[in-house]
């Protein structure tokens, strides 16, 4: 009986396909991967319609319906490359980014409503949805996070800021088994988008039936388990070791932990000893394609571990990597890979950057030296320094002619694009620069022709940059040094190890810092260059960041313009209406443009990733960003191998 049914299913499917478009997929229509069909026959798994939710998430594949089988091979760089796993298996949160990053769409949540002032969000979960071990996924799992973890000070001494508004932690209410309402102390207009970012899956991350064994409230024997486990001192540590935490390799180290991901860990999990990670399809994955085939298409994802990037490149050259950008997408690697393309059987896809510029000079507006501080806070000095750079020359020599002279700000394709912010003062005009510097009180020069500050010291910038990670910055700074010499400004650049870079930065001990500018396409989520918000990234004024983040208790009060932007940002976060959000943010960008606090050399340029020629449904262009954890939003579970 069962056999006949299996043979009949495919022809039946074809005729039903048209009807499927119109009616919701009915239970009998679903198709199983051959690998799982065998297990169903052997009685190890329930049939596919019992494993899927009542209404699975129906995905239309990018180009064509796929076929089952095969292994998606990727590489991890040595230790702590866990986010590379996250990027392919996907951040399965309540919402997800659309593949083209134009907005969000339902993911784990089937639908949602928000109230008018964006303080309450009601999520409807999928009826009958299951964890990877077959246990039901319900509102109780969400409530477990909110009540037992988020609002438990032992677990979170300070709560993840995604769930905090007005210094109060999010609360939740269970409406029924498949409906939960989240409540915030104030308006939270970005909440739904934030849930699509890589580190915001907490509400649907922990399976209560499994994880509660590590919580004292549910299991009085937790103390004993803590004592028996080496390295662990309290229950939150034990919980995080066994049940995972979002941002840690341990998340991928325990195959017993139930998940909602398309592929789940096998006993070859990601631990420090491993040289190869293997994930296999989740038999309870809750997405199907538009023909009723349960996703994912490929049986396995394997990830070799290569601590050396050259070894990783070698694997890509050999064609042992099926789809990857991370760790290989440098300009220098492109010719090597292009040469190996035919033999290795792969091609490139374009990785469009979300950053704004490749190299931004963050002048220290809160400089410890009062003379220097006064000079750097003079907009005309900043303009002069920018006009003293011949960007075309640097782009030609250092960036192989790729990119255009650019400051900071959202990219041209973004609705937030601000012409002034990104293009002002990019021309090379040493005469004008000299004129401005003379006027700013730097009109005296020493014997070597360098300008003297009002206190008689030479006008010098001593700069540290992380040369190992970004050798191009060193090259560019060397050229800048010569160019600035012509306007009487001295520049000494030294490459330092990155933790020294960061400790100098946090100690506010620098003239300017060099880093790339994010905020090209992800301005809402990473606005660190538009106002002081990021404690390790808004190098223009770290003390101001501290002031803002501690509510005025630490750090230093920002100037009026930055305070205004921070106030607008608070308003922006509270605005529920996307049009209103855009309007406020544009205002912020305009102020940043008028203030002209930092300058860059070149616009960010596209990089690339490699794709196996036989791997289908991979887009030609994928945004690459942290907030859009490429390639997950393009749904790798729909990639398949053409026979």
């Amino acid at each position, binding site marked *: 009986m069962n056999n006949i049914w299996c043979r009949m299913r495919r022809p039946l499917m074809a005729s039903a396909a048209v009807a499927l478009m119109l009616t919701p997929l009915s239970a009998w229509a679903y198709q199983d991967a051959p690998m799982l069909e065998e297990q169903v026959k052997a009685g190890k798994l329930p049939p596919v319609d019992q494993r899927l939710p009542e209404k699975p998430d129906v995905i239309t594949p990018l180009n064509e319906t796929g076929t089952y089988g095969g292994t998606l091979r990727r590489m991890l760089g*040595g*230790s*702590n490359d866990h*986010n590379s796993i996250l990027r392919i298996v996907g951040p399965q949160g309540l919402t997800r980014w659309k593949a083209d990053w134009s907005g969000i769409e339902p993911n784990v949540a089937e639908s949602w409503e928000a109230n008018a002032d964006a303080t309450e969000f009601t999520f409807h979960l999928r009826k009958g949805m299951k964890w990877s071990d077959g246990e039901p996924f319900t509102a109780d799992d969400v409530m477990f996070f909110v009540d037992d973890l988020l609002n438990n000070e032992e677990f*979170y*001494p*300070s*709560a*993840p*800021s*995604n769930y905090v508004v007005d210094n109060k932690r999010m609360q939740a209410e269970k409406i029924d088994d498949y409906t939960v309402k989240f409540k915030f102390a104030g308006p939270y207009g970005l909440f739904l988008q934030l849930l699509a970012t*890589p*580190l915001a899956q907490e509400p649907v991350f922990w399976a209560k039936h499994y994880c509660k064994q590590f919580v004292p409230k549910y299991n009085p024997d937790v103390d004993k388990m803590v004592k028996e*486990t*080496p*390295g*662990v001192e309290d229950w*939150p*540590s034990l919980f995080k*070791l066994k049940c995972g935490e979002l941002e*840690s*390799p*341990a998340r991928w180290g325990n195959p017993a932990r139930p998940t909602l991901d398309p592929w789940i860990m096998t006993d*070859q*999990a990601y631990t*420090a*000893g*491993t*040289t*190869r990670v293997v994930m296999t399809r989740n038999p309870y994955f809750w997405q199907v394609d538009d023909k009723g085939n349960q996703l994912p298409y490929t049986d396995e994802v*394997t990830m*070799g*571990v*290569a*601590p*050396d990037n*050259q*070894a990783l490149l*070698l*694997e890509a*050259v*050999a064609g042992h990597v099926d789809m990857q950008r*991370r760790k290989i997408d440098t300009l220098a690697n492109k010719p090597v890979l292009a040469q190996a393309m035919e033999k290795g059987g792969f091609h490139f896809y374009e990785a469009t950057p979300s950053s704004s510029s490749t190299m931004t000079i963050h002048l220290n507006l809160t400089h410890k030296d009062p003379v220097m501080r006064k000079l750097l806070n003079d907009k005309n000095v900043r303009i002069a320094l920018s006009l003293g750079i011949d960007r075309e020359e640097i782009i030609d020599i250092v960036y192989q002619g790729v990119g255009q002279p650019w400051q900071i700000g959202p990219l041209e394709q973004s609705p937030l694009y601000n012409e002034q912010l990104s293009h002002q003062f990019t021309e090379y005009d040493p005469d004008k620069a000299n004129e401005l510097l003379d006027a700013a009180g730097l009109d005296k020069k020493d014997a070597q022709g360098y300008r003297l500050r009002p206190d008689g010291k030479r006008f010098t910038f001593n700069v540290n940059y*992380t040369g190992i*990670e970004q050798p191009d910055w060193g090259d560019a700074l060397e050229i800048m040094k010569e160019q600035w010499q012509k306007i009487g400004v001295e520049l000494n650049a030294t490459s330092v*190890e*990155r*933790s*020294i*870079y*960061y*400790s100098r930065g*946090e100690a506010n001990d620098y003239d300017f810092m060099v880093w790339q500018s*994010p905020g090209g396409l992800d301005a809402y989520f*990473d606005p660190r260059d538009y106002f002081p918000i*990021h404690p*390790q*990234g808004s190098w223009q004024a770290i003390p101001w960041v501290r002031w803002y*983040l501690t509510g005025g208790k630490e750090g230093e009060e920002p100037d009026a313009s930055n305070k205004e932007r921070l106030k607008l940002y608070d308003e922006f976060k509270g605005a529920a209406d996307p049009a209103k959000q855009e309007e406020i943010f544009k205002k912020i960008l305009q102020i940043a443009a008028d203030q002209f606090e930092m300058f860059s050399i070149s616009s960010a340029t596209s990089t690339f990733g490699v794709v196996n020629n036989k791997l289908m449904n991979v887009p030609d262009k994928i945004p690459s960003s*942290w907030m859009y954890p490429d390639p997950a939003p393009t749904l790798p579970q729909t990639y398949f191998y053409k026979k």
Partner: protein
Amino acid sequence: MLWRYILKRLLWMIPFLFAVSVVSFLLIQAPPGDYLTTYIAKLAESNEILDQSAIDNLRERFGLDQPIYVQYFKWIANLLHGDFGMSFEWRQPVSELIWERMALTLILSFATLLFSWAISLPIGIYSAVRKYSIGDYVASTLGFLGLATPNFLLALVLMYIGVVYFGSDVGGLFSNEYVNAPWSWGRFIDLLKHLWLPVVVLGTGATASLIRIMRANLLDELNRPYVDTARAKGMSEFWLIMKYPVRVALNPFVSTIGWVLPNLVSGAVVTAIVLSLPTAGPLMLQALLSQDMYLAGAFVLLLSSLTVVGMLISDILLVLLDPRVKYD
């Protein structure tokens, strides 16, 4: 006498290892910042952003907000109970991470040692006995080439040839199906199949210098009067050389056993990284780079203990080998 000497040496190891633990902990702490600064820096490199509250939580959980002596005593107290603490980077107990790596490191060291001895002893003896012959020149030339080529370069070249011309999988010590499998006969055979590459790469340098040492030592011994005496008494030439001069010339081989392990861990790190070997070296280097104190500390302590034990073994072997060495 010898037993008392061994006991004394063993007792001395206790304060020595204690001192090593203090010094290594201080050294790991010496660079500016702590694990979290390097962690943040690493994330920032790919423009990944970590929540400030998560950083605060981690700092508290790892005890990084406490003074260094408190951190040290916490570590050493747990260590006395056999608990090596938690690796910051992997957020896994250190004890889960180190044993397999140490075991593979020992296997690799031992195999490399055997390989280089097996090659260098006969060649060294031959070069000494047939001084300035064609064979001596050939062996010396090859030896110098081996010594002069950096190991990692040799590894890269061999890997490149393997990938480009043979399409083979390179790197690692196991085939895919055995990587995380429990130990079995099949896994052992698989290990042997992969072991030769790192052994050859790592062994070449050592082999070359051992050939030279053997040759020089043996040349010293060959002209000694006792050799002439033995020869005059009509002993066969082969046994004559093997039994006396070679035995004496072995002295430097035996006395360096204790260094083999630390050498392989510290000197072969680059090679191990290039070849993706799951040995202690790369993990320790990474732990040091990211200031993962407890993991790095555990490795430093284990290596120090093994070195101390290794030195003891070479001293004992020396007594057995060379009748002139005495301990009182």
